[in-house]
């Protein structure tokens, strides 16, 4: 008989419920002995989704590896807010080299560990979406192709937020950034075909690809744990809303991430060797408008005149995702 994996969902409140669970099943973050891989006192903005995501990813990875972890970080917000000399928020072995080379540097660390017979020590590479889908993309593809034993994590906040909110290859259509301004003829970022790196990672047929958001932190921890059970190149793409760049209230970060999945714009799934193995179904579907209108970067879709044409195009993308991944339970679809 097939055994279904137990999954924990977060609903309503933004806390991770643990008290009713067996201690072994509680989240990494609820464990008093967690690493605090990225400790408090760093300089991230209030409500930063990336800081939250990185803390969960690394603490989960530290637990999964018994603390035998080396982290390689690309240039970007995460690097800047965590290591202003002479301070460091990192309580893991941590290396920052450049913006575009984190996957290659991580591959180098993994190669050194193989040469030294220390494959018990695992490697995580991490970058924002700029460092992953744009400037670091060549190195990332090389890492996948070689199947180096690295988990690469992209914290996707859909733009170059560290440099002041410019467009990246991960910026969605119609979003306003400082380099995709809103004018009469140019309502924010163009409607292109997009660059969804999880698909590109899957095309490399690497052992594991997953997406996650900071709205479902138990799911994020579980995916890190799963990734660390496997060897070879693994990729985790985490949606991390950015209050500064998206124009959202700092208290709304997790709600925004949840709405991104519940409207279908950000599909949450797992894939192994190029095949989707699991999806997180949408339990309360919302129209994209629910997600869009809370963000200043989309305000021009609603003011001064409502742009139903553009909202419909975005809705169509969400609908396509829902169909493609089967995100709705049968009773709802």
């Amino acid at each position, binding site marked *: 008989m097939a055994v279904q994996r137990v999954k924990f969902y977060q609903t309503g409140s933004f806390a991770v419920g643990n008290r009713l669970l067996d201690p072994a099943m509680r989240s990494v973050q609820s464990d008093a002995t967690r690493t605090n891989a990225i400790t408090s006192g760093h300089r991230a903005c209030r409500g930063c989704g990336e800081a939250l995501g990185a803390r969960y990813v690394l603490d989960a990875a530290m637990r999964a590896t018994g603390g035998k972890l080396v982290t390689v970080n690309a240039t970007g917000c995460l690097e800047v807010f965590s290591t202003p000399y002479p301070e460091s928020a990192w309580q893991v*072995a*941590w290396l920052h*080299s450049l913006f575009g080379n984190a996957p290659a540097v991580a591959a180098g660390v993994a190669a050194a560990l193989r040469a030294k017979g220390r494959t018990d020590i695992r490697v995580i590479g991490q970058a924002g979406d700029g460092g992953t889908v744009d400037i670091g993309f060549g190195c990332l593809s090389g890492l996948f192709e070689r199947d180096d034993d690295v988990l690469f994590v992209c914290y996707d906040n859909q733009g170059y937020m560290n440099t002041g909110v410019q467009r990246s290859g991960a910026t969605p259509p119609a979003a306003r950034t400082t380099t995709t301004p809103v004018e009469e003829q140019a309502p924010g970022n163009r409607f292109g075909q997009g660059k969804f790196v999880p698909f590109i990672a899957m095309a490399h047929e690497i052992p594991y690809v997953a997406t996650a958001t900071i709205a479902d932190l138990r799911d994020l921890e579980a995916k890190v744990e799963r990734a660390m059970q496997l060897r070879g190149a693994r990729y985790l793409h985490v949606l991390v809303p950015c209050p500064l760049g998206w124009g959202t209230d700092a208290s709304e970060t997790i709600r925004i991430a949840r709405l991104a999945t519940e409207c279908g714009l950000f599909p949450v799934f797992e894939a192994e060797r190029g095949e989707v193995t699991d999806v997180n179904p949408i339990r309360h579907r919302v129209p994209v408008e629910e997600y869009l209108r809370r963000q200043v970067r989309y305000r021009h879709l609603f003011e001064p005149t409502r742009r139903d044409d553009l909202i419909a195009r975005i809705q169509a993308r969400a609908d396509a995702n829902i169909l493609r991944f089967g995100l709705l339970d049968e009773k709802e679809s």
Partner: protein
Amino acid sequence: MRAQREGSQAVALTVARCRPEVVCAYPISPQTHIVEGLSAIVASGELAPCEFVNVESEFAALSVAIGASAAGARAYTATASQGLLFMAEALWNASGLGLPIVMTVANRAIGAPINIWNDHSDAMALRDCGWIQLYAQDNQEAADLHILAFRLAEQLSVPVMVCMDGFVLTHAVEEIDVADQELVDRYLPPYRPRQVLDPKAPITIGAMVGPEAFTEVRYLAHQTQRQALTVIPRLADEFATVFGRRSASLVSPYRTEDADLVVVALGSVLGTLAETIDELRDDGVRVGALGITTFRPFPTEAVRAALRDGQRVVALERAFSIGSGGVVSQDLRVALAGMDCPLSTVVAGLGGRPITRPSLRQLITQARSAPGDPTAGPQPLVFLDLDRDLLAHG
């Protein structure tokens, strides 16, 4: 073991005897034979557990070396030309992080126009990136300098480039004595990194440094690199003791003692130059050469010590700073400050154009035509064998 070998093969064998733990490479002419040789040695299992990583670009090649070195492995790569420039950002990063990577640069021109042949434009363009730069005169030196380079890099925690002329050396077959493993092991101890990525003692490497400390970081890098000027001669002496043959060091003077003209050059052209000097000496012309092996850090004192007042100095340059002039000349001018040594620059051998003995003879003869008269003799900047007909038809 002494044998007829291609320069690239000698370098590959020598690097292997230095027991690298991670070798990463991306192919570019004329560097390819070196990494092909190393890949074969690694594949044979002889270097186990060395990892050979085939990467997708030169930028990745050096980045893999950076990660490997920071994780405590002895790391090596090789490149040339466009590849070196594609690494530029990572070059500064490796030196800034104090990672003792050793890299061979098979010197080649930079495009456009694309040109695969030898000159020094590539390494000279990156002379300020914090790497030590050593230039080999011949293939014996090229091979031996790698052993010294690993020792030097790891002693100072500074990366080292070993520059050897593309094709002229990399593809030339000559008798080369590749150092025995036992002797290399005696000379080069295992790599002990100054700091390492260790989960048991986690450290942060590569923090962001603002105006309050950035100048100090650069000052320390300068001081550390300058230490090489005392370390290299000591390592060269020790090399001679262990291996029983001289090693290149900071500079190599050739028949300069009573010379009234000294040609300063780097790399394989020094061989042609030595033969030309011998010919001219037979004719009674008092001329010498000064080879610069260590170009970064620049051996100011050694250059001054090798020259004396009244000597005319000609810098024979295989690279060129467009809009300014000779690259080596700038350092020479600083080194010669206060000395009575009129300096002129000759740009030669760009993009693989051969520097022939007749051309050198003519150059030296012209330069000596009016000894003692600084207004006579060569122009301050000359392009050797410039084809005026081609320019006229351009």
